[in-house]
C-alpha cells in the first residue's frame, strides 16, 4: 500500500510538470501577449498609449524573450524558491493573490460535494427500492432537468426571481454592509443567506448523475441472492438494504470524488462570475483574457494539483472501502 502511494505521488509530480508545460503553451497560443492586451484595454477606455511604453512593458516583464526561456525561469522559480512569479495586471506576486481564493474555492467545492451526496444518496436509494413509482419518475425528471440546464442559467433565473419578487440582489458572499464588518452572528447568517444559492446550484449539476448511478448499481445488487438470504433471515427491510447492497453500491460515490472536484471547480467559474463570488474562477478568467500568464498558469497548476490529489485520495478510499479492489 505504502509503496503504491509513493509511486503514485512520484507520478503526480511528473503529471504536474507536464500540466505546467501544457498550461504555459496554451496560455501563449492566442495572438499577442499581456502588453498588447493591456494596451488595447487602455485604448478602449480612451487613454492614449505610446509605443515606447509598450516596448518598455515587454522588456520589464521579459515578454520579449523566447517562450522556452520564459517557461524555464517561471518553473525554476517555483521549484527553487516557491516563487510563482509576478501578476502583470495586479503588479503583485502571484502567491499573495491566490491563496485566499484557493481556500474559498476548496471550501465551496467540498461543501458542494457534501450537498451533492446528501441529496443524491437518499434519492438514489429511494428510486432503486421504489423503481417505477411516481416518486422515482418525479426525481428522474428533476434529475435530468438538473443535468441538461446549464447551472449558470439556473443561477441567473434564481437571481432574477429573487430580484423580481423579493427585491433582493443575491451576489457575492455578503451583503454590502457586512463585507468589511467584523465576524458576528449576523454576518454568519448573512453568509449563509448568500451561500446557499451557489452551493445548491453547483450541487444540482452533479446530483442527477450520481442518483442514476446509485439507482442502477443498487438495482443490480438488490436482485442478488444474498439480499434474498438476508430478507429470509428476517432482517428488517431498512437493515437489509443499508447494510449490504448500499455499501456495495457506494463505490461510485467514492471513485467519482476525483473527477467531481475538477468538475465543480471549472463549473463554478461561470457561476462565480455571474454571482460575483471571490473564488479562483473569475480570477482565472480575467487572467486568461488579459494574458496575465504567470497568474493563469499558477491557478491552472493548483487546480490540477488539487484534482490529482483528489483522485489519489479517492483511489485510496476506494481500496479501503472495498477489499475486492487490488492495488497494482
Amino acid at each position, binding site marked *: 500500500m505504502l509503496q503504491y502511494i509513493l509511486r503514485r505521488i512520484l507520478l503526480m509530480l511528473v503529471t504536474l510538470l507536464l500540466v505546467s508545460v501544457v498550461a504555459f503553451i496554451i496560455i501563449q497560443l*492566442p*495572438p*499577442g501577449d499581456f502588453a*498588447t*492586451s493591456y*494596451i*488595447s484595454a487602455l*485604448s*478602449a*477606455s*480612451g*487613454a*492614449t*498609449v*505610446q*509605443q*515606447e*511604453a509598450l*516596448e*518598455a512593458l515587454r*522588456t*520589464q516583464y521579459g515578454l520579449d524573450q523566447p517562450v522556452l526561456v520564459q517557461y524555464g525561469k517561471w518553473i525554476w522559480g517555483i521549484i527553487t524558491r516557491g*516563487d510563482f512569479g*509576478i501578476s502583470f*495586471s*495586479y*503588479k*503583485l*506576486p502571484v*502567491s*499573495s*493573490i491566490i491563496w*485566499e*481564493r484557493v481556500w474559498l474555492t476548496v471550501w465551496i467545492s467540498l461543501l458542494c460535494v457534501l450537498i451533492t451526496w446528501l441529496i443524491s444518496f437518499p434519492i438514489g436509494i429511494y428510486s432503486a427500492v421504489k423503481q417505477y413509482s411516481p416518486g422515482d419518475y418525479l426525481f428522474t425528471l428533476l434529475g435530468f432537468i438538473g443535468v441538461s440546464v446549464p447551472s449558470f442559467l439556473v443561477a*441567473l433565473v434564481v*437571481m432574477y426571481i429573487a*430580484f423580481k419578487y423579493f*427585491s433582493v*440582489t443575491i*451576489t*457575492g*458572499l*455578503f451583503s*454590502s454592509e457586512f*463585507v*468589511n*464588518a*467584523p*465576524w458576528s452572528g449576523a454576518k454568519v447568517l448573512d453568509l449563509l443567506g448568500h451561500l446557499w444559492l451557489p452551493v445548491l446550484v453547483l450541487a444540482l449539476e452533479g446530483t442527477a448523475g450520481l442518483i442514476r448511478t446509485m439507482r442502477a448499481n443498487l438495482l443490480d445488487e438488490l436482485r442478488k441472492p444474498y439480499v434474498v438470504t438476508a430478507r429470509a433471515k428476517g432482517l428488517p427491510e431498512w437493515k437489509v438494504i443499508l447494510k449490504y447492497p448500499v455499501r456495495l453500491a457506494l463505490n461510485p460515490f467514492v471513485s467519482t470524488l476525483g473527477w467531481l472536484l475538477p468538475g465543480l471547480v471549472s463549473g463554478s467559474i461561470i457561476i*462565480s*462570475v*455571474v*454571482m*460575483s463570488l*471571490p473564488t479562483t474562477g*473569475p*480570477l482565472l*478568467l*480575467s487572467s486568461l483574457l488579459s*494574458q496575465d500568464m504567470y497568474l493563469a498558469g499558477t491557478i491552472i497548476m493548483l487546480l490540477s494539483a488539487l484534482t490529482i490529489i483528489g483522485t489519489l485520495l479517492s483511489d485510496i478510499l476506494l481500496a479501503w472501502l472495498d477489499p475486492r479492489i487490488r492495488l497494482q
Partner: protein
Amino acid sequence: MKTSVVRFLALLLALAVLLSACGQPTATPVPTKPPAAGQPTAAPTKAPEPTKAPASKYKEAPILADLVKAGKLPSVDQRLPANPLVYAGASVGTYGGNWRMGMRGSDYNMLFKTFGVDNLVTWTPDGKGIVPNLAEKYEVSADGTEFTFYLRKGLKWSDGQPYTAADIEWWWAEVAQNKDLEPAGFPSIQVKGEFGKFTKVDDYTFKVKFAAPYAYFLQQIAAPVGAYVSSCPAHFAKQYHVNFADKAKLDQMVKDGGFKTWAELFNARLGAHCQSVWSDENRPNIYAWVVDKGYSPNATQLTFSRNPYYWKVDSAGNQYPYIDKITVDVVQDVSALVLKATNGEIDYQARSFNTDPNKPVLFDNQKKGDYRLVSLIKGQSNTVAIHFNMTSKDAVKRAVFQIKDFRIAMSYAINRQEMIDTIFVSQGKAAQPAPLEGTAFYNKQLATQYTEYDVKKANELLDKIGMKKGADGWRTTPDGKPFAFILEGTKELSGYMADAGNMLAKYWKAVGINAEYKDEARDLLYQRKDNNDTDATLWGGEGGLNPLLDVRNFAPVHYESNWAVAWKNWYTKTKENAEEPPANIKALIQKYDDALLAPSYDAQVKAVNEMLQMAADLFPNIGISTPADGYGVAKNNLKNVPDRMITDFTYTDPFIARPYAWYFGK
C-alpha cells in the same frame, strides 16, 4: 481580519472619546488622519497647535466637528489652505451619506475618474476651458515654453503634512526620470526628447521650462496624465525609493512582499507613475475621499471616507465633500451591476453597465429603484470610424485605398440612415469622423461631406477611376486586377461593431466592391495592425471634443491611426513597417506638430483647425453617425448632479461634474 478589528476598536474608541468629551474643548489635537489607527508613517507629525474657540471662518461635516471637539483633528480653519478653492454647486448641500457604486473586476479607473483627477489645473464643467485647481493661478510665458504655477498656500495631504512645490519637484526628478520606474521617462513632460526643466521658486511656487513651445502642456495636466504629476507624496514615497530609503530596510520590504526589484515594490505601494491610490490605506492623497478599505485582487468591497484636509469649499464656506463615504462593491459580471442599479443599490454610476442594450430595463425600473437617468455627452467624434489602410503591404490594395474618389464612392454607398435606425435605435445623425458641433474645432466640411446615400454617384465615381466590373460581377482595380478586401473589427470594443461591419460590406457589395467583414479578438486585431497586415479596420471614432487629445482620425501620428500604419511608424520612428509619407501627408503632420508646440491656446486652436481643414480636403477616413447621448444612473435623492455631462476619458466623468459638491437631499 486584523485591520478590521483594529478599525472597529478605533471606532469604539472614537465613540467613547466623543461621548466623554462632548462640548469641552481639548488642548492637544493630533493632526493625522483620524479613522485609521496605527499608521506607520515615517515623517514626524507637525507640532500640535492648541485649538481656541474663535468663530470659525469655514464650516465642516458633523463627523469632523466631533473629531475636532475630541481633539483628534485641528480646526477646519487650520486644515484648509489660506485661499481654498470656492466652487458653487447648483445648491448648497448638507453633509452625510454613503455613495454606493459597483466596480467590475479590477476597473479602478472608475475611481480615478470619480475623484482621482484633482490636478494642478482642471477642466471647466463644460470641458471648454481650464481653471486653476491645486494651483491658485498659473502663468504661461509669451513664447509658450515656460509655465509658472502658484500653489494654494497651506495645502495639506490627507495625513496633515504640508503639500508644497517640493512634492512635485521630487516626483519630477525621482519618479518621472528614474530609469527603473520609467524606462522611457514619463512622456508628457518631455518635448523633443528633453525633460522640462523644473525650478522651485519657493514652497508654493515653481516653474517648468521646456526646450520648445508647449502650450499643450496645460491641457495635458488638466487631463488624466496630470494626476501623475501632482499626486505623489514625497514624504511617504521616500521610504520605498532606492535613493532615499535605508538599503537594508528596503531590501527586506522587497523580499517580504515577494518582489524582485525595488521598482516593483514602489509601483505596488504607490501605483505606476506614483499615482494610483486605491490600495494602501496609509498612502496620503489630496483628493476629496481617502482609502479606508483599499483595492486588492481579492477585495469584494472598497470603502473611502472624506478627506478632512480637502481644500475646497462651497459658496457658504462649507468644506467639501458633502458625502461622507463611498462604498464600491466589486462584481465580476455586468448583469450583477444592472441588477444592483435596478434595485436602487447604486447612487450614481455611469460605467460598465450603461450600454444601449441595457437602457430599456434601466429605464423601466426607474420608479421601482427610485432613481433617474442622466444624459452623457460622448466625447467620440463618430460611432464608427472606417480606416482604409493607405499604406497596406499589398501594393494593389494600397493603390486603390489611396484614391480619394474611391473613398468618396465608398462613403456615398453607405445608407447611414438605415444603419442609424437599425443599430443606433434612430439616435444621432449621419456624419464623418470630426470634432462635434459646438466645440471650437467644428469643421462643417469635415463633418458632413459625402454623407448622403447615393448609389448612383458611388457607381459613377468608381467607373470614373476605372474600376470596371469583371466577369464575376466584382469591380477590378483600375489596371484590371481582381480586387477584394477584408474589413476587420472587434465586438470586444463595442457590441455593435459586427452589425456595422456586416451592413457596410452589404452596401459595398451593392456597388460591386467585394468586401467582407471579419470580427476578431481585440488582441489579434492589435497584432495584425501592428504588423501592418490589415486592409481596412473599424474602430470607435475618438477625438470628438478636442482632436489634439486624440488625433488618430485626423493625422497619421497616433498609435491607432490605422488608416496609415506605415506613415505613423515613420513619424514615431518605429523601425519596422515604416515608410516616409508623401509631401501632402508630411504637411498634415507638420501642422500637428505646430499645434503641439503652439505658444498659446489660441494659436493652438488655430493650428488644429488648419490641420482639420487639411484632413477635410484629404478625407482620410469614413464615419457613420454622431454618437447619441449615453446615460448614467442617479438616485432621486442625490442632488447637484447635472442632467447632462461630458463622458470621456480625457475629461474624466463624473469628476468634471464636481461630485464633491453632490449631496443626498430629501
